[in-house]
């Protein structure tokens, strides 16, 4: 009797285990709990057999968590990665090669961010870029046109000079320094790109800082620094909020910070200035969030379903509406009426036509650290531009040679 009961119990257990839902884990940065609940509600309804677990990571240590999960051989099924991390992860061979999937998504843009050696390892999901913020009141005070912010480097310099002449604690421009990422991404690298230059050649074998395009951009940057506040991004933003900075370059996250913390501030947005009227582009830094699938996932089909769902324009727009610092990579999303109601955010979509991503080099982080030091020597110490570029060209060449 007891034996039969046991057998029955075992049978019930096996059957129920077999019927149990596929467990899918999704690690991401962009959605807090209420947002992810709202965004994924439909997915959960459509796929009752998939038990979805969503974890939000922080930018501070999220990358470490992903790394340790991979090292332990137990990564999540679907992972959101920053576009600058893609080369590292792709080259390690831990992500699923999804090259054959691309043709299913004709409306998704920005695939180049996920490429490594002609193969693709992720789906571009959300994009973000930087624009020029300017203080309308300071522009009027300095006798500048408050409707047309500077479009070229020359106009930017002239405007910065006039604004910084307004007072002792007033600065024409805000340049980031003293931390990682912001000094290179806010404007230095985009200025180089807009000028037709780059810091590495196309196959990442040569550092190209000793070119005229880079040197001109750096000299402009150094000149601009004389009329600028030079602090960490939060310091620059605070001074801008207090109405003491004429212009600075920042991402869409600044809109909500400025509007809530400094409601009296009268600011507007413009394109990132280009080198001159007939030369160069309004280049800006392209940030991108990529959806990737772990190579050894056991739930490939469920993972693909989730990715397909998240890439839908209406789904991705749900995120933009709640976290308006990023917008969908799906080009159909621009048809949403939300954009017309939020013209400030629309500026980011316009600017995005000129956005450029950082070189997809596996050791980019090392290169960026060197570039950050270089920018400091140029804008804080006012060291000779060409000598400084030469010095760091050698250092970066050293990195390229070491990891050939």
């Amino acid at each position: 009797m007891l034996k039969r009961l046991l057998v029955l119990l075992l049978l019930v257990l096996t059957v129920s285990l077999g019927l149990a839902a596929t467990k899918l884990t999704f690690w991401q940065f962009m959605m807090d709990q209420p947002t992810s609940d709202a965004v994924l509600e439909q997915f959960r309804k459509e796929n009752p057999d998939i038990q979805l677990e969503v974890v939000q990571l922080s930018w501070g240590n999220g990358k470490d968590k992903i790394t340790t999960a991979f090292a332990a051989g137990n990564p999540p099924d679907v992972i959101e990665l920053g576009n600058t991390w893609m080369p590292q992860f792709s080259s390690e061979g831990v992500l699923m090669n999804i090259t054959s999937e691309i043709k299913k998504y004709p409306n998704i843009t920005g695939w180049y961010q996920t490429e490594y050696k002609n193969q693709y390892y992720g789906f571009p999901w959300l994009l973000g870029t930087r624009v020029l913020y300017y203080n309308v009141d300071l522009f009027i005070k300095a006798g500048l046109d408050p409707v047309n912010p500077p479009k070229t480097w020359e106009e930017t310099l002239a405007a910065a000079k006039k604004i910084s002449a307004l007072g002792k604690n007033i600065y024409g421009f805000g340049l980031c320094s003293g931390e990682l990422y912001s000094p290179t991404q806010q404007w230095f690298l985009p200025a180089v790109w807009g000028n037709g230059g780059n810091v590495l050649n196309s196959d990442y074998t040569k550092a190209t800082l000793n070119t005229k395009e880079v040197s001109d951009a750096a000299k402009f940057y150094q000149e601009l620094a004389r009329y600028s506040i030079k602090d960490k991004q939060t310091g620059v933003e605070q001074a801008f909020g207090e109405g003491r900075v004429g212009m600075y370059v920042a991402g869409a996250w600044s809109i909500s910070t400025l509007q809530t913390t400094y409601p009296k501030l009268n600011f507007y947005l413009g394109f990132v200035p280009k080198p001159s009227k007939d030369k160069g582009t309004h280049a800006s830094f392209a940030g991108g969030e990529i959806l990737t699938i772990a190579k050894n996932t056991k739930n490939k089909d469920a993972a693909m379903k989730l990715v397909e769902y998240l890439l839908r324009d209406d789904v991705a727009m749900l995120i933009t509406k709640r976290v308006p610092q990023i917008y969908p990579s799906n080009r159909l999303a621009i048809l949403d009426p939300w954009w017309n109601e939020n013209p400030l955010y629309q500026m980011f979509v316009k600017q995005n036509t000129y956005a450029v991503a950082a070189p997809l080099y596996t050791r980019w982080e090392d290169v960026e650290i060197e570039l950050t030091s270089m920018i400091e020597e140029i804008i804080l110490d006012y060291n000779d531009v060409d000598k400084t570029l030469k010095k760091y060209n050698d250092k970066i060449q050293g990195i390229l040679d070491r990891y050939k």
Partner: protein
Amino acid sequence: MKPKTKKRVTVLIFLLPWIITFFVFELYPLLYSLFVSFTKYSGLNPQTTFIGLENYARAFQDEVFIKSVLNTLIFVAGTLPFTIAIAILIAILLNHLNLKFNGLFKAGFFLPSMISMVVISMIWIYMYSGTGFFNTVLHFFGFAVEERSWLANQNTALGSIMIMDVWASFGYYMILIYAGLQNIPYSVYEAARIDGAKPIQIAFKITIPMIRPTLFFVIALNTIRSFQIFTEVFTMTNGGPRNSTETIVHYLYRVSFRNYEMGYGSAIAYILLAIIMTITLIQKRALRSDYL
């Protein structure tokens, strides 16, 4: 079972939780990272290539690593004397003055040790910012200061972290020293006074020698902790600007988790172990302590 064996088994069972955690979370990672330090290993995929001592050789040619060792030495040498001196001074004051609100002072000085270092760092980031507390005070007294965070300036960043660290940690050592002072019997002081000893003589002939074991413990602990400084750097500067606050443990982290060179990172960890061990042994000799 013989009573003796039974007792042994009981002891073993009671020790088992510690033994298991020691093997799983301490001994195994320790040995594994020693192995990894001789390999090329990214941490992302399981592939390891044995490269012998190459990682160790590389460390001594890596200018950022050398800079991080120097920064760490500056940090230790620049904070340890102040932390310990302030801790001793306040402990002696509290022990001898017998103030009315003694407990309140003790709790007050100890308070920073109970706050998470991340929280303390976040607060001090604001105090060091361009228009923060320190710049406002300097400005008030007529100094022309540039509007830039102290942490964004390569000349002031490391010093700023050191000042904060002394403030945040002396209270903990003060309590330890205070406890040591309480153990000195009052009769010794009384006898000294009857024999006509001066306060300075009492301090150097009685107080200091009698708290020597505590003092060694406090100095050794502070040295080890200072060599491992990480949280402050990670939260406040990320090693920058221009590597001016890069410390050994933060660089180890950067190499292992940012650059995916776990092998090289492990080698740096073992170099740090060697440095700390050497210095602790020197301290043990210098203070002639039998403790530890």
